[in-house]
């Protein structure tokens, strides 16, 4: 019996999609840039980091540390990757949204 996918909040979905869009170079800065590019929403930096941390604790993201580099003041970069449960949850949400949108024609 398959487990129901974990429920995702709206902002959590945006973060996961941004991580997917960033590919292998998904970390705090790039995720923030991706969000800024695709949405008109002004997002607090603290919210992005807390959500990334929370998603990792939920098992929807995994992170890895790169080598420390001088451009980061000698600090390592934490890169994130989306996990399979996260993909399943995103697909579930997408199906639900498409199903709800089906047949709706909203004027601009």
């Amino acid at each position: 019996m398959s487990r129901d996918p974990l429920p995702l909040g709206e902002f959590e979905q945006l973060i996961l999609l941004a991580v997917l869009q960033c590919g292998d170079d998904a970390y705090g800065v790039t995720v923030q840039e991706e969000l800024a590019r695709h949405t008109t929403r002004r997002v607090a930096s603290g919210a992005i980091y807390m959500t990334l941390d929370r998603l990792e604790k939920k098992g929807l993201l995994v992170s890895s540390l790169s080598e420390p580099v001088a451009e980061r003041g000698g600090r390592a970069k934490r890169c994130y990757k989306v996990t399979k449960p996260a993909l399943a949850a995103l697909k579930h949400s997408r199906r639900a949204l498409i199903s709800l949108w089906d047949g709706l024609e909203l004027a601009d």
Partner: protein
Amino acid sequence: MPFPWRWLTDDALADCIAGDLEEQRRRRAERSRVLATLWFWRRTAAIAFYFGRTQLRSLLTRLFQQMFTRRGGIGSDLSYSVRSLRRAPAYTATVIGVIALAMALSTTVFAVVDGVLFKPLPYPDADRLVALESGFNNLPAPTVAAPSWIKPRTTAGASALDIAGWQAAAPEASITAIRTSRQSGMGEGVNETPYGMGIVQRNFFETIGVQPMVGGFAASDFDYADTVRPVLPVVISYELWRSRFRGVSEVIGQTVITDPTSGSGFRVVGVMPRGFVFPSGNATVSVIAPYRPSSVALRDPTSRSFSEVFARLPQGMTDVAFRERVEAGMAAVAATLPVKPRPPGWSDRGWRMQGPVDHAEVLPLANALGSAERPLFRAIFLSALVLLALGGLNVSGLMTARGLDRARELGLRRALGATGFRLARLIFLEALVPICVGAAIGLSLTVPLLRLGVGLLPEDLVMLKAHVEPAIDVRVVMFVVLSAIALAVPTTIWPIRRALGINVAPIADGSRASTRSRSIGRAVVIVSQVAGALVLTMGGALLVTSIMAVYANTPPIRTEDIVVLRESMQQPAAATNGAVDRTIRTRALLDTLRRLPGVDGVAVTEGQVLDGGGGVPWWRPPSAFRTSRLEVVAQAVTQDFYRVLEPQLLMGRFPTDAEMEDGARVIVVSESVARTYWPNVSPLGQSLTYQSQNQSEPFAVVGVVKDVRWNYWDTAVASVYGPYARVSRSANVTVFIRTRKSVDQITAQAINAITAFDPLIRTTRTGTLDEWFADTVRPRRFKAWLFGSFAVAALVIVGAGILGLIAMSTARRTREMGIRLALGSTREALVGLLLREQLMHVAAGIVAGSLVSAWAVRFVKSYLYEITPYDPRVWAAAIAVIVATTAIGTLIPSLRASQTDPVEALRVE
């Protein structure tokens, strides 16, 4: 440097964030290092703020859940406390009632005295406003030995010339002067409420810093010689606009005619803003009129027309510097005045006080206004706090008794693992709930009590009446909240201490020691409550008895249908023989007033009539009593005096019309004079010598009347009534008009007739004789009523506490009652046992309370009227009240306990 979010999250995430920010900063630094740095720190602060806010929100949510929703939190304790209180309705109702009563009274008092004691004056930069009192340096001592209790006057008013001189000496300050008077009414309807009128100079509004909210005086309003009473332009108070003019927007230009026969009245030219208080300590002013020099003032610029002077000082000028400038101005004014020779009949002191002033006292306006009221209201406020504390003590006693009875339950809780903190929290919440409910009820009772209290305030409490609004404001609510918290903490200290000191072992083995300590504790609480109740009941009984004596004290003269006017009869410049001229003018004045329609009689007296201290030594005592300390009020009366006022004759007769007309040397004395000077013989036919600068002649006593309290106080004084033509010496007289017409009508007509007769005669006070007498006792009556109410409230609080305490302690002994009945005791014997036990405690409390009362009653001595602090009837009544209260409180639960079914009682655990 550690980044702020390191304290708000784990190191790994913090490091990651730091790295990202550094990367972005370096990228931005390629364009501008300064902007990059600014951006970096802005972003750092934003992230730290976000983390901090999230953490705080999370913490508060956890705290709330722990306290209110989890088992063992405050919520469960609160719920248990409410259930526990519901199971003891009598106790809960008693505590809530006591707190509500104490809180209602103390909050009402706070709302009233806040205006006098705590609130700043309602003027901009009120700390720059000062009051200025002018007086005399090196004033000669009085030539005639004044009675010891008379404080010789040392201050004088101010003239327009004085004000101009002082202003010239201190041009940076703004000095203005005012005068107030009470007007009899607005001429419409019967018994129109008197209103206060303030006469102001043209710079009044600028000095006080408050302008009318609409309209105002024009410059021309101040330039008019007041030879005939015109329609005065006036600025009215907001309250008068709302009450008299219904708050209509077209009030400007409205005219009120106060005397239809002469057409005089006033025209509204402006309205003051809401909450404005006229800065006078003499009257509550609702109508402001412009100062227009009278004909007297125009003729003599040194005529002192103003009674109160105040100034606004500029920043940087101290009171001392201002005083020096004013005194320099006084010297400058004095230098411009001609030195006049002292006319015959004037003492050195009296003549000096007619001359220019040379001494100034400067004090903050806030201190000057209401200065007479502050000590009284400090005492009232302290009494209210004592009442509140008493309520708290009462509640503490009830809670202690309840705690003693719950020792077993609390001991079991300790045995089952409850910590001291949990027990303390439980007891605190059980106290806080009824205190909060009582405080809320008390607050809701405050507004009607406030309305009642403000309505009863006497007129002489000027600033208080002006400053108090019967409404609850933020300050009052804060007082209630702080009082509730202050009550909750100390009332629970002793019960918590008792609860934390409970030893489980004696309870476990059923030791009798716990029962005995419970009995001792209960006895101590009852004895202390009874003693406290007796002390307060004693004070209340003394003050209530005083009030009754005050109300019963009616003067032994006719006061009905008597209108009174005080007149200042300035001497014409051409006057040569003061006494003769005065007599002729007075007779002519009386004839004028007798011709007014509706007047049944007119009389004049020159002497103290309810306006100040008492005796003056114009009448020399018989030689055997030269050292007598009897203070005698000398009245110089005209022909109709006895017919108009009908003083109660005890012996002899009144002087005949012929004797009064001819100025025969006959007098009437009051009973105190007769009793003191002629203790063993009839006073009729005896003589007293009248002494003045020019004459010393004997007058024969023809009649004796009852003492009348002619001075301002409520004590009857010894008086001698002599013929006006022979013994008058002053320009100030009091006119009594007996009339069937309305007071307002006859007053207005009389004033106009007097002014038309002689513009030099100025009316300074009007009213009815009933009002004047009522005014003399109003302050004492108010104090007696106020402190009596406090005492009665304290009695109710403590009485309710005793009632509840005894009822609770008796009800708790239901099982014992059942055992006694089962073993053969009768119900009567049971009631007798309970009564005897409690009455022993009550007797001990009465003894203790009597000892304390014997010491404490000295503090109310000054408020008592015609009774002593140790009046045996009052003491007996107070003790009887306490015994009755405790007997009722004991009998009711005793009777109920005696009806116990032994079988049911033995099942009670």
